[in-house]
């Protein structure tokens, strides 16, 4: 079955088939196959291979400078790998130009370190940026979606503030709202809780969990904060009969849908769920987890 032919003419029939397949449970939405990248002499990624299944979470751990953020940038096309194959939602992104990547990015949301909010725009304009600037959604609908999304993360009253008036945690949450406002199927989190106090970090973790479980978003979470990584893997969001959303301990089946990847020296040295990570006897992992 062809997803996309190699001279990049869009095959409407194949695209429709691909969309149907990708929307099935268990479909791969991101595939890395022997990806490698080096900056001059420094090898950042070497032979990285993994698959993200639709609706699941991949948590990428590693020391600073181990290449975690680089993986996210390769997925979004902000960086190009030196070798290997990268598939995102059925598109082979390692061969796409910047212009062709725009279509792929329509289904990808990325939360950058420190938020990367546009500091000359209000919270409303930041969250609704893609809706106002890059879509033909009517203004009223875009406003409604912005208010809905800010309500989801609990920052409705900050809608007309500037990013400089927000705390670090609030900025991260607005960044999450901006990334989810256009309903992407994949969300990428780059150190979303680094530098935050534990309470604020938990609030951000719960937003990630709610998006995954209530909006059925596939997630890749890059972090070196073990506490947040385990929290995301071992908890889930449920909507009670009264409509109220709660974050509770995950069922074993749900826990297995969150997989950990540990990077070391540009390679994957561990891949498995939270239980397997806790029980690993690898000395490097034990040092990292201690």
């Amino acid at each position: 079955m062809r997803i996309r032919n190699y001279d990049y003419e869009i095959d409407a029939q194949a695209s429709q088939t691909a969309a149907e397949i990708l929307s099935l449970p268990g479909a791969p939405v991101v595939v890395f196959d022997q990806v490698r990248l080096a900056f001059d002499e420094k090898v950042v990624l070497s032979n990285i291979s993994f698959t993200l299944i639709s609706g699941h979470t991949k948590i990428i751990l590693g020391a600073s400078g181990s290449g975690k953020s680089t993986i996210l940038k390769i997925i979004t096309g902000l960086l190009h790998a030196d070798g290997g194959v990268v598939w995102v939602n059925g598109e082979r992104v390692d061969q796409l130009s910047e212009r062709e990547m725009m279509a792929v990015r329509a289904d990808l949301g990325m939360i950058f370190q420190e938020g990367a909010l546009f500091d000359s725009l209000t919270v409303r304009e930041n969250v609704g940026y893609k809706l106002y600037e890059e879509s033909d959604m009517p203004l009223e609908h875009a406003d409604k979606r912005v208010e809905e999304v800010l309500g989801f993360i609990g920052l409705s009253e900050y809608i007309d503030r500037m990013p400089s008036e927000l705390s670090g945690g609030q900025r991260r949450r607005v960044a999450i709202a901006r990334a989810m406002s256009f309903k992407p199927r994949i969300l990428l989190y780059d150190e979303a809780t680094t530098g935050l106090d534990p309470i604020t970090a938990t609030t951000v973790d719960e937003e990630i969990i709610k998006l995954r479980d209530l909006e059925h978003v596939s997630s890749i979470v890059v972090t070196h904060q073990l506490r947040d990584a385990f929290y995301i893997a071992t908890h889930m969001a449920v909507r009670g009969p009264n409509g109220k959303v709660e974050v509770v301990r995950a069922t074993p089946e749900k826990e297995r849908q969150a997989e950990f990847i540990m990077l070391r020296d540009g390679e994957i040295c561990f891949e498995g769920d939270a239980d397997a990570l806790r029980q690993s006897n690898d000395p490097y992992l034990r040092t990292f987890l201690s």
Partner: protein
Amino acid sequence: MLLYIQSWLKHAALEVQEYVRLVAATGRALVTPPRYGHDIVEQFDVIGVGSLTVVLLTGFFTGAALTSQTGITLDQFGGRTVVGRLVSASMIKELGPVLTALMLTGRIGSGIAAELGSMVVTDQINALRALGTDPIRKLVLPRVLAGFLMAPVLTIIADFVGIVGGWLVARFQLQVASGQYWSSVTEALYMQDVWMGIIKPFVLGFVIVTIACHVGLRTKGGTQGVGEATTIAVVAGSVAVIAVDFFATQVLIKLMY
């Protein structure tokens, strides 16, 4: 020493390559959609209307100082009454375009480099790309259009205000009759001088803004990098204005005189 020169040449060649790529991408963005009309209008306001004060002051005092100085020199030949000719020719052909461009380099060149550089180091440019926006279309093209089209307008304003400043000095310091001054302003002007004074600002405005955008988008290294980028934008922009003015003048003289 040889290695240093080699490294410097490689770096210079890379900068020229990236500058040309930026200009080409801007040209493509001009003739293909999407374009961001709101941002274009905003930049016309920031670069055009926002630079009025500095251009008015620069033009006025340049014209006034020029008149004082040339009045003294012309006195030696009994030619005080033709001071208007010298002021208008100097302002319109050279001083107006160059000084306006230098003021714009300091004002908008530094601002553009700082703004874009800050966006680079805080990942806002990457965020724009991740949200499906081409930074060239959203950030560079509006600024280039505004610089290209508003530089001539501001230059004309500077020229006029400079000639007015010259009139005030001529009338009240040099005791030249107003009628004589204003008659001599137009006597010495040929159409080629006027065309030269209008065509050069287009080129200078383009050079100032494209250099500032190029330097800003290639900022590295945090807040220190932003400071360096701002300095480079002003220095490189100023040197480019002087150099491009020279070459543009030679070309226009050959074409028009």
